[in-house]
């Protein structure tokens, strides 16, 4: 029934995929770090509140903080050991964030409450949701919105379709791809739990067609469940952006400024589904995740990493740098964040570490806008990035709002395509920030 649908959206770009280096690399377990840094904020929303003290002994899976509000999640110790310090520490998303630093005792003891419950699918929905909350799950595709909140739409918004996002459209990244191949059952079970919580009986898995093995495996495993369909999507960035994905799979258009529930949809990432399964079937909190390490590094790999592991442990495990690195990015190259230190830890939303050489980071000089219209043509939100950016440059933030700057999903396609090498999305983000600030006043 899904075949009649087109698998695409308007606009978008085709950056070089660069996935071939890691897509066939099975997930490896990296040795336990000597210490982990657990930032109290790894999600969108309020920071979590600390509940341990310096010197406390903790086991892997024990909470070290509790939610700081409804839109917030607890964080957990990802190794067993002693709380060595609670102090601000470099955060991969920028700046410093109060963090719990745990020194390993080398024993890797797990919290006692982690235990398999064979009857997990029959738990009441509310209890499942609570378990997801207690496991500290936040969207693992990178957005890190608290999952239990996303799974609690207001009752007047009827959700009829759950969507599992396996598109992984960012270049280089293959962590979701490997997860779909190696943890297929867990992901599908997690998706079924999500569908049960939402009370929906239509689930669509969207995967870009550059991952035929993952499509096949996910189809095989989900074939027992007629309510779940797997759809192969065209390869195009940003296919994994919520509104674009929903449109490609259902032809529904989420109105500007609205959430997917407006059109009865809810999107979860495959990594999140796996974490949901762990939480509900095992009471296992989110303490590790798969990270792709790719680019200019001796061995490009997919690693399963404890949350809080310093980035340096990952790059060392991959054999270190080939050349002196010029740019280290957390996330994908289109939306990721450049790091200035390898001391920053892996957090819940860290899907990859990309290392770029010097010749990969220069794009040529910025020249004045040619009005070529390429940015307009490819903007997946159908905005006019050239006009918004030039208004911002002239300080006309309010007018930029008139041109719908707030609808920008910050995908970066406009900057990517611009032949004049203008960093449009940076200007537009600035406008969004200013407009939001103004609105708060």
């Amino acid at each position, binding site marked *: 029934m899904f075949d009649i649908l087109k698998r695409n959206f308007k606009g978008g*770009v085709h*950056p*070089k995929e660069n996935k071939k280096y890691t897509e066939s690399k099975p997930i490896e377990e990296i040795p336990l770090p000597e*210490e982990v840094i657990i930032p109290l904020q790894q999600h969108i929303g309020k920071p979590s509140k600390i509940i341990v003290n310096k010197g406390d002994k903790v086991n892997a899976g024990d909470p070290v903080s509790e939610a700081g509000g409804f839109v917030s999640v607890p964080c957990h110790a990802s190794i067993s050991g002693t709380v060595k310090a609670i102090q601000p520490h470099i955060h991969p998303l920028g700046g410093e964030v109060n963090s719990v630093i745990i020194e390993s005792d080398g024993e890797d003891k797990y919290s006692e409450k982690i235990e398999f419950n064979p009857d997990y699918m029959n738990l009441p929905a509310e209890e499942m949701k609570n378990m997801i909350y207690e496991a500290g799950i936040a969207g693992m595709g990178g957005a890190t919105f608290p999952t239990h909140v996303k799974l609690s739409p207001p009752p007047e918004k009827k959700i009829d379709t759950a969507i599992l996002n396996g598109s992984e459209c960012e*270049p280089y990244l293959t962590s979701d791809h490997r997860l779909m191949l190696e943890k297929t059952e867990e992901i599908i079970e997690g998706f079924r739990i999500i569908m049960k919580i939402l009370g929906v009986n239509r689930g669509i898995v969207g995967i870009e067609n550059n991952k035929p093995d993952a499509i096949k495996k996910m189809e095989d495993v989900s074939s027992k469940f007629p309510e779940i369909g797997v759809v192969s999507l065209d390869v195009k960035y940003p296919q994994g952006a919520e*509104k674009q994905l929903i449109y490609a799979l259902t032809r529904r*258009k*989420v*109105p*500007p400024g*609205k959430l997917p529930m407006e059109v009865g949809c809810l999107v979860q990432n495959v990594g999140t589904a796996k974490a949901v399964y762990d939480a509900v079937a095992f009471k296992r909190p989110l303490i590790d995740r798969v990270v792709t390490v790719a680019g200019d590094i001796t061995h490009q790999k997919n690693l399963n990493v404890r949350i809080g592991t310093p980035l*340096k442990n990952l790059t060392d495990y991959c054999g270190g740098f080939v050349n002196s*690195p*010029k*740019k*280290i*990015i957390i996330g994908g*190259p*289109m*939306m990721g*964040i*450049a*790091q*200035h*230190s*390898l001391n920053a830890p892996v957090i819940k939303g860290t899907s990859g570490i*990309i290392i*770029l050489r010097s010749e*990969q*980071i220069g*794009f*040529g000089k910025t*020249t*004045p*806008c*040619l*009005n*070529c*219209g*390429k*940015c*307009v*043509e490819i903007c*997946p939100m*159908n*905005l*006019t990035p*050239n*006009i918004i950016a030039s208004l911002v440059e002239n300080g006309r933030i309010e007018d930029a709002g008139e*041109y*719908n700057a707030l*609808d920008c999903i910050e995908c*970066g396609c406009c*900057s*990517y*395509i*611009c*032949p004049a*090498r203008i960093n449009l*999305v940076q200007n537009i983000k600035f406008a969004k920030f200013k407009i939001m600030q103004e609105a708060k006043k």
Partner: protein
Amino acid sequence: MEEQITTKEILSVSSAPHIRAKDTTQKIMFAVVISLMPALLGSVYFFGVRALWLTLISIITAVITEWTILKLRKVETTLSNGSAIVTGILLAFNLPGGVPWWMPVAGSFFAISIGKQAFGGLGFNPMNPALLGRAFLLASWPVHMTTDWTAPIYGTKSGISAITTATPLAVLKEAIDNLSVEDKAQQALQTIAELKGSYGNLFLGNVGGCIGETSVLLLLIGAIYLLYKGYINYRIPLSYIATVAIFTYIFGGPNGNFSGDPLFHILSGGLIVGAFFMATDMVTSPSTSKGQWIFGLGCGIFTVIIRRVGGYPEGVSYSILLMNLTTPLLDRYLKVKPFGS
């Protein structure tokens, strides 16, 4: 853990996206230069090596002018973006083959200095510099610009054997005007009928006209290359040419409405070079698709009006210049709706 593993000095922390598409301003400009080469070769074939010299003079003047002004403005040289070369070629393409050598010098100098640099250089010029240069030449030396035609190597200036002095559009215009003159009407009808037989010459470029505008075939080869590369898109050329076709069919004929010859109008004059290479100039045409459709439509309407009732037989360059002025308005006021609304 305290030790700093990497320092801010060596790692770039510029913001996303961290990769870029290959196309740059420079690449696009050089692709445009390449796309104009078939037509240039064709002009040398049809009009002799003089066409090449005029083009080279025009390019050299454009480049020297640009370089000098950038030096005077103390702007870091943006010469390497190649846009001056494009302007130089397009200006030469708009000249009759027999003009004296100083005309491309004057035209190119005007195009670059007044048409482009006076506004702040590439990206800030409101109108197509090459067309502005041509308009300047036409206003200053109208006789040279309207009579210095050279006949193509194997044919006549008009494309038909009966008339040898004027270009096809001028012949048609005169013939249509003569229809209402009693003793010339018979002859005029015959001329119009004969022009229908010249499609082949028009398509190949075996007629009189500006250096670079005559060969539809060779221009299309270049245009297809640019379309394939994605450096121009089809909207402006399509709406421009379709508008000309439809309106000349309706209003451009010898026997009242709905008797025009759209194919003749498409193939003759500067429509093809204008629609694909000048109306599509990025800087001076709209960036939104709606704007581009309307821009082409406007160019088409003005072209037909000028060809039909204007003082000149050809109206492509003035039409594009006029529509250039609407570009900022079309961009700003034709708001596009965001996805989902």
